[in-house]
């Protein structure tokens, strides 16, 4: 007999899994029932979604290059020279 009541620890695992795969019917129903009653797991769910959204913003907005993350000048020169040399080489 499957139990329908999951504890909070099991629920946090299912909340994470739901971001990566489809849960079984049994899990989905149990999860929904639990979330209706448990404000802390509902909070956890929102926080995982927040984390995901923040990581996506972090990934997409590579444009906002901070001074600390520009390429070091030596590397820049080295790579430029390297490209120049490759282009100079007769094919």
């Amino acid at each position: 007999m499957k139990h329908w009541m999951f504890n909070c620890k099991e629920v946090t695992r299912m909340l994470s899994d739901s971001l990566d795969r489809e849960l079984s019917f049994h899990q989905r129903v149990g999860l929904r029932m639990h979330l209706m009653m448990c404000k802390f797991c509902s909070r956890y769910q929102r926080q995982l979604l927040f984390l995901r959204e923040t990581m996506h913003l972090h990934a997409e907005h590579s444009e906002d290059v901070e001074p600390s993350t520009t390429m070091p000048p030596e590397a820049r020169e080295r790579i430029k020279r390297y490209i120049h040399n490759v282009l100079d080489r007769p094919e």
Partner: protein
Amino acid sequence: MNPKNSSTDSPIINPETWVDHYGDYLYHFALSRVRDPSAAEDLVQETFLAALSARKNFASRSSEKTWLTGILKHKIIDHFRKKAKEPSVDNIMFGTEALDKLFDQKGQWKIKPAKWNADPMKLYEQREFMKVLNDCLSGLSSRMASVFILREMIGETTEEICKVLDISATNCWVILHRARGYLRHCLEINWFTSMSTED
């Protein structure tokens, strides 16, 4: 912007300008994912090398930048693949204990999630918050970071991650669960609860 040749379909590619135009962007793209400056430099150089030999096949369908970024993405995935093969001293149970501590024996919350005042868009713009997030990411074990970054910053499916890192799907889900649990807790302690007194 690069000049385009109006007489043909293919744009003129000028690799001599690559570093000036895209160097910092690509470096930052790589660094935010592999989190290792010298590896990021190597990946940018490898990207340009691959782009040099493939530049005749470059189709103007995409911009030069998109094309280079696509090559870099593959290089980053390769980087994680190679890293997964290296012998590591990684603690495979990393994050388990930290997660377990949040619950009692019955699996009920012992340390309850705090209320966050969180708007990702607004927080993202705050340098201090991004610093805390980056510090938390640095706290992940090497393998956990690989899985998490591949999933959330490269956008790979867990199936693809399993292949790249040669781990099982179940293992992958467990690692992601622990990584998220760790990061959530880390942000809570270092940002949200330390801020809440000011609200």
